[in-house]
């Protein structure tokens, strides 16, 4: 291979690369439509989305390609060796945000360097994945799995809590999603999965009892079912105790966690459970998004012809709710095509994560897959009304340089891993 060609093209899985390119192009096409000037004289109500958004995204896509190529070609062992460096840098940046970051829409999430603004949380996501992969790989090599698990938990919690305090609930959940994915790959006993799953159930049911039904009995009934099950199954005493403890602690933690949430966050969750009462407040985004997608039909209102987006009914249509524009203008076919591109990328990523031999590569690939899956599933669920609204962008599609660059770099790493998985 020639030197220049090496610099310009990534190596690894061509199908993932193709998906990346198609998604970036779709994103640019949709952003062109979104940034078209809007019919009628109503700039004073909604200034519309400026065309500069499209051009910026184009530049970021080119930068993203460079990141992708670079990440696909850097020898993975260098990354493994220096895993702590990006994590420490992003930690410093995250700590800087509350001190020097400007307040935008009631939250401090950005750092501004001249014309460029960065979201340190985006960088923290990828660096956390890298550090965890490195840690877990060392745990596999040294056979000290518990220590590695505990350490990764702490190192994930630090950026997650900092992001949560910005406040950015959605992004902080990303850290936990990637951690769970990697730990699952690392090898958790089945009972841990069960304990975790019932813990989540307990939390959801407790939330329902407390905030929606205003009655204690649903959670009480659930706990009785758990107790009855534990009475009959033949598990070790510590397993039974931890199962019970996880359920009780999750149940107790939820009201405390709920009280910690900001008012608007609570409203969004309540709007999800009682949409009619919040149709014009917290539930407005979900409702408008569903109307946009639903009115698209099988083939959509056709490109550049969406009325919802054009008339400013769709909030955040260039960022978190870009998928609604896809649904409205390109219809069911277009939306499924976009979801399908992610699906192909993710499934191939899982296959590479399973095929590759080196533990670091395996966990790195898994972290990236978990990251992508969480973002795509949660974002599409929010825009189609399956989940309460929280700020999760659609990777590669939503406008935003940090996210595009970081996602491209992560996919570069995945390509890097894939080249090893096929080499073997």
């Amino acid at each position, binding site marked *: 291979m020639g030197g220049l060609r090496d610099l310009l093209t990534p190596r690894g899985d061509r199908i993932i690369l193709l998906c990346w390119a198609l998604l970036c192009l779709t994103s640019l096409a949709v952003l062109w439509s979104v940034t078209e000037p809007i019919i*009628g004289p109503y700039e004073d109500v909604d200034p519309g989305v400026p065309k500069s958004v499209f051009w910026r995204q184009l530049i970021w896509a080119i930068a993203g390609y460079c990141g992708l190529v670079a990440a696909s070609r850097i020898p993975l062992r260098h990354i493994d060796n220096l895993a702590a460096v990006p994590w420490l840098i992003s930690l410093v940046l995250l700590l800087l945000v509350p001190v020097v970051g400007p307040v935008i829409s009631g939250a401090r999430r950005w750092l501004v360097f001249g014309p460029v603004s960065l979201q340190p949380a985006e960088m923290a996501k990828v660096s956390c994945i890298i550090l965890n992969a490195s840690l877990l790989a060392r745990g596999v090599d040294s056979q000290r799995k518990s220590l590695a698990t505990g350490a990764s938990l702490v190192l994930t919690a630090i950026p997650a809590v900092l992001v949560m305090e910005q406040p950015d609930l959605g992004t902080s959940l990303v850290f936990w999603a990637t951690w769970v994915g990697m730990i699952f790959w690392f090898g958790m006993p089945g009972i841990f999965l069960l304990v975790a799953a019932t813990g989540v159930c307990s939390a959801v049911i407790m939330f329902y009892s407390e905030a929606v039904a205003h009655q204690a009995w649903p959670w009480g009934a659930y706990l009785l079912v758990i107790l009855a099950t534990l009475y009959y199954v033949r598990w070790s005493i510590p397993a039974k105790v931890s199962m019970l403890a996880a359920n009780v602690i999750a149940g107790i933690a939820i009201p405390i966690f709920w009280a910690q949430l900001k008012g608007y966050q609570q409203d969004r969750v309540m709007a999800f459970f009682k949409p009619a009462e919040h149709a014009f407040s917290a539930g407005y985004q979900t409702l408008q998004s569903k109307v946009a997608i*639903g009115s698209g*039909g099988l083939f959509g209102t056709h490109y550049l012809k969406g009325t919802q987006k054009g*008339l400013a009914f769709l909030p955040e249509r260039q960022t978190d709710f870009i998928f609604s524009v896809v649904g409205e203008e390109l219809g069911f076919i277009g939306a499924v095509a976009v979801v399908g591109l992610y699906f192909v990328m993710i499934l191939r990523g899982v296959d590479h994560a399973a095929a590759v031999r080196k533990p670091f590569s395996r966990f790195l690939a898994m972290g990236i897959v978990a990251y992508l899956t969480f973002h795509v599933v949660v974002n599409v669920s929010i825009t189609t009304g399956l989940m309460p609204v929280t700020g999760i962008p659609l990777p590669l599609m939503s406008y935003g340089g940090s996210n595009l660059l970081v996602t491209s770099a992560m996919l570069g790493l995945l390509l890097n891993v894939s080249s090893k998985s096929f080499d073997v």
Partner: protein
Amino acid sequence: MDDRDLTVRHALLRTIIIVAFAILVVNLFQLTVIRHSFYQDQALENRQDRFRVRAPRGRIYDRDGNLLAANLYIADITVPRRCLTPAGPDSTLTRLIEWFGLDRWETLERLQQQPARRDPLVLVADASPARIFTVEERGRDLPGVKVVTRSRRQYLFGTLFAHSLGYLGEVSPSDLDSTSTAYVQGDHIGKMGVEAAMEPVLRGVAGIKLEEVNASGRIVGRKPVWVRDVVPGTDVHVTMSLRLQQKLAVAMGDRPGCAVALDVRTGEVLAAYSNPAFDPNMLGISISTKQWNELISDPDKPLFNRITQATYPPASLFKTVTSLAGLAGGHIGTASSLEPCGGGWTYGNRYFRCWKKGGHGWLDHTGAMMNSCDTFYYQLGMRMQVDELAAAARAFGLGSRVTTEFADEVKGNVPDTAWYDRHLGKKGWSRGVLMNTSIGQGELLVTPIQMAVVAGRLATGGTMPDPVFVRTPAPVRRQPRPLPFRPEHLAWVREAMRRTVAEGTGRAARLKTVEVAGKTGTAQNPHGDDHAWFMCFAPAESPEIAVAVIMENAGHGGSEAAPIAGALLSTYFHEDEADSVGVPVEIPEEVD
């Protein structure tokens, strides 16, 4: 970690991912394909807002082209219903309440009480310019808040035409049910008189515009998506004359009573004034509950249209009918005499008084009519059958409605055998009732407009059409029915009436240039002083105008009612050119 374990995890993970994406795709299918039409409707609703443009109501003119009722344009400030969230008012509404200094509680309650189908809600009705400017200036901070103009009815002469023109009020729920397409909640509808009778003509057709709007309700389309043009209401010309009406009002002053004048050639109502009256500018739309309660509990009943709604005994005016019935039945001749009047007449074991205590002595039929001798008519009445007299009364239009325009007109009562049987029992009464009926008392009840019709039909021999209040658009008329009396008998009655005014009890209605024929009456009133009656027509030889006047509790018709008819007739025949037409009464200040 062994390979087998990894394979299991790999398969598990793939399954989870496939299931998750399958859920996404199924949900997308549900949204875009299965529930597509629902969301498409929602999207259309998002984009289109329906604006209803009320039609300007037709104006009302008098017969000479004077404007009587016009429209005054005023503005309401409205807020979208979504401002009222279950938790209370949103920030927009809160701001408005603060800026306008409204009472928060009272305002919210009022808004909540506006019916569910009304959107937007009227926050301030008939807003002051200051408030309108506030909304226009800060519209940016007030998404969905609109200034909606509407018109208010303006009656230029206030109380002068109150009962005959009527007034406007908000449509009631029953109006909405019966004519749901023409009205929406908050529309105005004629509540009385010409406004009610000509409602379909006056109201016009409301226009509808579908406009493309953005998320905050602002119109963004260059032109409406769909338009139904406004059809303005048609102007109405009434038969009444401002000049005559003003004359009547001045002549009656503040005494309760009413008067109505008809053109006997056309049946057109030239003047109709019922006193006391109300101010239609105040009524219906901007009236407070307190003002309304005062109006309906006023003992003088200002809301009551005496012309068509009040019934009185016709008293001596009815003697014209009794005479004609007697002549038609051959019970008496025009020159016949009966027993002389000694101040009364005994029937059975009861003594019925003549109004003149000393008695009239010897009178022939003409003299009895001119002097209104009760004793003569007691005797004449007793020669007839109950139903004979009732039939004569009915031939004049008594006992039934004489207008088609006034829904609230009452029929009065013409008692006949069937009526007495029903109300007093088959054996509960005797022919003695004729003692009362023959002099227009007892169970006989008439409205003032019916007595004007009696005068008009006497004057024309029955060719006068039924009374109408509207000239254009031309109303549908009933064919007039001639009176079933011989022309020489009618001529004799007319001559007796002419002499009544010329030399008898009706002298107060005499004119300088025109001969008037009339009949006075004094209706016994068990609740208070007697009512003064007068009916007449003029000129006596070739009648043009018929008038009926009743002054409540005023005493004698000759002295109290006849002068009012005289005043009206002198204006009609231009004998008092010196009188000015007068200036319109002042319209009350806008109420904010």
